[in-house]
């Protein structure tokens, strides 16, 4: 952590007007730090990082960072990222999306990017709510929760995003919380090194909305909730469904090998020439 000033000067845009848009207690800033540390640790050139986002609180992340940055439309970040990766294969393409962004409006793009195994690292910031629009239920909102759009309790059941992308074919899937920062740095680093479609699901506190609706009114409450409820995948395998209720299962869920879209396309190039 003592390198923080160095990382700030090296990776944050000095030309971008601050303050940032996020609420006090938001987890996205911690994720931003983890992403910067993972990129620095990986030794990538700033010119070779392509950071793409969708719409929502997480959509505002790229603009603060001194990389190639693109803020796209709601749910569609992966489609733009796909075009960029194919046009400039040398770029390390990273997509940041929220839970609503990635699994509701962008759900179709998410599963198809995973199926296609396009060489992109996707970070899904899951705060279990639509934060920017004022606390409406998202596809990961727990069953029964009262939100701005479910005043009588949420009638629907949540997605498990990590399992969803595993089923869709992602070659690397991991989950962490922003509380477990050291682990998060490492998981993002591993995802960046992985060839193919890699996903890191990051559980992130939204104190302003999710906290208010679940009785966790301070950032400390939410951090404590993450700390107390995180269970590693290895341990979770030995636990019953009841025991896993309301737990956050963390660690590496998938790490397999598969040819990427770009490798296959390059093969076609060689064959038809």
């Amino acid at each position: 952590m003592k390198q923080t000033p160095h990382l700030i000067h090296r990776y944050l845009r000095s030309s971008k007007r601050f303050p940032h848009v996020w609420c006090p207690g938001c987890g996205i800033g911690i994720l931003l730090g983890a992403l910067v540390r993972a990129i620095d640790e990986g030794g990538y050139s700033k010119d070779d990082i392509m950071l793409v986002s969708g719409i929502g609180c997480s959509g505002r992340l790229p603009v603060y960072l001194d990389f190639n940055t693109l803020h796209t439309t709601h749910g569609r970040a992966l489609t733009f990222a796909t075009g960029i990766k194919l046009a400039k294969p040398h770029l390390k393409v990273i997509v940041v999306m929220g839970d609503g962004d990635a699994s509701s409006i962008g759900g179709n793009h998410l599963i198809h990017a995973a199926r296609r195994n396009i060489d992109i690292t996707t970070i899904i910031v899951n705060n279990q709510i639509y934060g920017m629009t004022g606390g409406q239920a998202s596809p990961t909102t727990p069953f029964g929760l009262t939100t701005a759009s479910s005043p009588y309790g949420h009638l629907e059941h949540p997605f498990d995003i990590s399992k969803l992308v595993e089923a869709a074919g992602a070659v690397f899937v991991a989950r962490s919380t922003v509380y477990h920062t050291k682990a998060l740095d490492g998981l993002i680093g591993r995802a960046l090194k992985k060839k193919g479609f890699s996903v890191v699901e990051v559980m992130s506190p939204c104190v302003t909305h999710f906290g208010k609706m679940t009785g966790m009114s301070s950032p400390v409450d939410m951090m404590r909730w993450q700390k107390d409820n995180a269970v590693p995948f290895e341990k979770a395998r030995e636990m019953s469904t009841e025991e896993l209720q309301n737990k956050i299962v963390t660690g590496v869920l998938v790490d397999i090998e598969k040819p990427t879209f770009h490798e296959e396309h390059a093969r076609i190039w060689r064959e038809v020439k």
Partner: protein
Amino acid sequence: MSTQTTPERVLLQGSEACVRGALAAGCRFYAGYPITPATEIMELMSRMLPKAGGVFIQMEDEIASLGATIGASLGGMKAMTATSGPGFSLMQEHISFAAMAEVPCVIVNVMRGGPSTGLPTRPMQGDVMQARWGAHGDHPMLVVAPSSAYEFFDLTVKAFNLAERYRSPVIVLADEIVAHTRESVVLPPMEEIEIEDRPRPTVPPEWYSPYRDPGTGIPPMAAFGEGYRFHVTGLMHDINGYPTERQDETQELMMRLFNKISKDFHLLQWYDSYYDEGAEITVIAYGSVARSALKAVKMARDKGLPVSLVKLKMLWPFMRRTVMRYLESSRKVIVPEMNMGQLSREVKRVNQGKCEVLTLNKIDGEMITPSEILAKVEEALA
């Protein structure tokens, strides 16, 4: 792909001519989703692009297709997609993004019968207004309309040139008849085809502001991944591409988006005229209907009737000054269309009582025939 040095006569379907035009213009990226009657364009691209060193990808839907197209263009490639009505509706969100972020791209819409799933294998011209106004927010649009296989080739080349020159999405609005008709086409030698490329930055990366007006209204465009690290967003932005809500910066960006095209209205009068001499009646037509109209006007002239034809090859921005001339010189103007009157609304708007504007509308999924237009001409002269 065409590398010939002398004119080449070939039998081409409209869709095939479009693909040849795109490749000649330098298109090296195509993302699409199958849809009748535009699927042939995608299938040909899937075969021809890899041979040309380009990239073809079939996406999960039309929203994704245009998203990937815009991404590839930001990565420095000339890129396009093609679709028909239902897919074109899905693309509107990203057409708006491309207009705001000023990303060159070409979208081909082969119009079919609508609304909704409508008549997938039959022609209509129901998307003329959608092409102009379908995408949200206020911004100019560039829309060209071919009436033959040759024009599908030529206007696809020119659509890429417009996209690159103005850093704008450009729509090629074809129809089912134009896309599916197979006809003899004379393709020009490659070196005679004029190709334009987007303005590139000449300053070093540390001096680069991606949206600074160099005086032409069109900022030089760097590609991602070439050392110019910059930000692109669909939010209102300042000259660095960073989000802004400032009134002065909003006003400046919006006016630049409009002015970069309106300053060139005089260069964007793309039309062909036939039998102008002594015409009392002018037929204004576009797309496949212009083919029937030309035949009708020839038949009328054979009968000694004073009729001319103006075939519009650019629909948007609407060619006010060209159309105005014909409204002033004619007694009556006839606008035949395979819709209930979309372009005729523009003609009437420009007309301001100068002459009588008659419409001929057909929405039964069949083309308008020369004899139907001739009958309207005779009725107008009676």
